């Protein structure tokens, strides 16, 4: 994880350096700016969010050419550690900061401020001809681990379930495995597809398939695939994923994405946070395949 983060970080940094037309290392504080004082900001953390944060940083720097942002991955834990050690201005995290980390931060007299900036929601999709329109999380888990392999077992017709998964390199693969499959392995019979569009294409043509995609993609392909409503357990009502139900927490296959700062944000840090939460910032969230806040 560490090495991948490093690599992503290097790539992101190179990308940003290229975009700002500044050939030098973005962390180099000696670099003078063309128009006045260049201001620097480092953002470190979640690998899931690197793409989103880079998009924000890119747009932000276009708006504010005097700003110079460096985005690196490494994982949420690495980002929080960096925030505590004061080696990053902003930390991106796909989980909340935990008790232990808060204690560590307090020991260094740092009061982390949490900002929820987006949601990451996964929709389960089936072919429109499939009569099933809702499942419980437990049923989804059984289907994807291979314990349940016929639609009959979840209240559908007597047809085998064809499980479609993403390749193991996908962030969604890991999130789904951790939060829905309870860290169990995927069924060995699961077919894995190289991308979201291949997933949608197959579910649209093959009747008895089931797969998962980011909510944004499911909504774009609403005419080709059917999005299932998911119940947290057998006693709860099934909830259709939407921007509203994901933000309210009713739809459970979702997680908030955070930015953390040390203390209350000021100056450029505050400007960046405001941008991320602004209308254009949330539009970038939508384009990146995540769920914007309302």
């Amino acid at each position, binding site marked *: *994880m*560490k*090495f*991948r983060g*490093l*690599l992503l970080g290097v790539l992101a940094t190179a990308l940003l350096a290229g975009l700002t037309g500044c050939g030098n290392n973005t962390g180099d504080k000696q670099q003078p700016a063309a128009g006045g004082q260049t201001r620097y900001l480092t953002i470190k953390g979640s690998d899931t969010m690197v793409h989103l944060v880079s998009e924000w940083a890119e747009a932000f720097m276009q708006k504010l050419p005097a700003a110079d942002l460096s985005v690196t991955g490494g994982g949420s834990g690495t980002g929080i550690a960096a925030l505590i050690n004061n080696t990053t201005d902003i930390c991106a995290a796909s989980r909340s900061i935990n008790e232990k980390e808060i204690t560590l931060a307090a020991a260094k007299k740092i009061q982390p401020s949490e900002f929820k900036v987006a949601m990451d929601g996964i929709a389960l999709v089936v072919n429109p001809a499939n009569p099933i329109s809702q499942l419980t999380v437990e049923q989804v888990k059984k289907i994807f681990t291979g314990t349940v392999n016929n639609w009959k077992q979840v209240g559908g017709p007597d*047809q*085998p379930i*064809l499980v479609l998964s993403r*390749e*193991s*390199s*996908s962030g969604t*693969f*890991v999130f789904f*495995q*951790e939060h829905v499959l309870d*860290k*169990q*392995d995927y069924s*060995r*019979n*699961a*077919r*894995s*597809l*190289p991308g979201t569009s*291949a997933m949608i*294409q*197959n579910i649209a*043509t*093959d*009747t*008895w*398939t089931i797969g998962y995609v980011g909510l944004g993609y499911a909504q774009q392909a609403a005419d080709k695939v059917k999005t299932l409503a998911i119940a947290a357990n057998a006693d709860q009502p099934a909830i259709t994923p939407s921007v509203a139900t994901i933000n309210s927490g009713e739809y459970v296959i979702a997680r908030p994405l955070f930015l953390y700062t040390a203390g209350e944000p000021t100056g450029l840090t505050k400007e960046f946070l405001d941008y991320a939460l602004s209308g254009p910032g949330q539009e970038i969230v939508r384009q990146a395949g995540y769920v914007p806040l309302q």
Partner: protein
Amino acid sequence: MGRDRAIQIGFVGIASSSILVVALIFLFLFKEAAPFAKHPGLAALLDNQWIPVSFQKERFGILPLAAGTVLVTAIAMLVSVPLSALAAVYIAEVAHPLEREILKPFIELLASIPSVVLGFFGLVVLAPLIKQFFGLNTGLNALTGGLLLALMAIPTIVSVSEDAINSVPATYRNGSMALGASRMQTIWRVVVPAALPGILGAVMLGTGRVIGETMAVLMVTGNAALITANPLSPVRTMTASIAAEMGEVPFGSIHYQALFWVGIVLLLITFGLNFIARRISVRYGMMR
């Protein structure tokens, strides 16, 4: 004289540069893969499952991937070899010159279609056809992959085999005819046996192409790492695994090293095939 020598050395250098490249590739592969031998040890590659990302236990058995490659390649060869060999014989021996002028360029055109385009064709056209024909629930399986790869192997096998048939000396044909053999007898008893080493070489080249193909199989074989001989079951090939997983794998991790081992096995297989192809052509070439 000194200049001749310099030029000669220059040409030798250029000619042997490809040997250097191959050696460097081997060296690089082994360098990246080596730490795997210490931990978790090469025995881990003999596992019967490939589960590179897991919260339980990561497993790096190359067997299911190799089985996938073998199954898809076998299907592709079973389809393409008879078709291509007959096509080559027809084009070289039977076809009217005008027919030849049309057939040859079109078959060769097939070779120039990018594999990702063929893969997309497989996903959108071939997979639904296979699904309907066999009454399956999905067309993502080894058979679809094999058929698509057969399409890619055909131009290679046809054009190399046709060259081999054309290079059979005219005296063979004349001699056969003079002894009263019919045209068909001449083709099947004299010309084809004489061209057989070349045709086998063409088959080996085609096999090499099929084994090394990535995008098309990645898109249509379903990519489930199963050990199976059922053409209608999904399979995961070695090349597809490398292509799908290498992009995001943590640099230097065990998974990364395991992918390099897959690459080494793949390289050894194609190396072996080339070696066999050479041996065949050398042996038969001498008999001729």
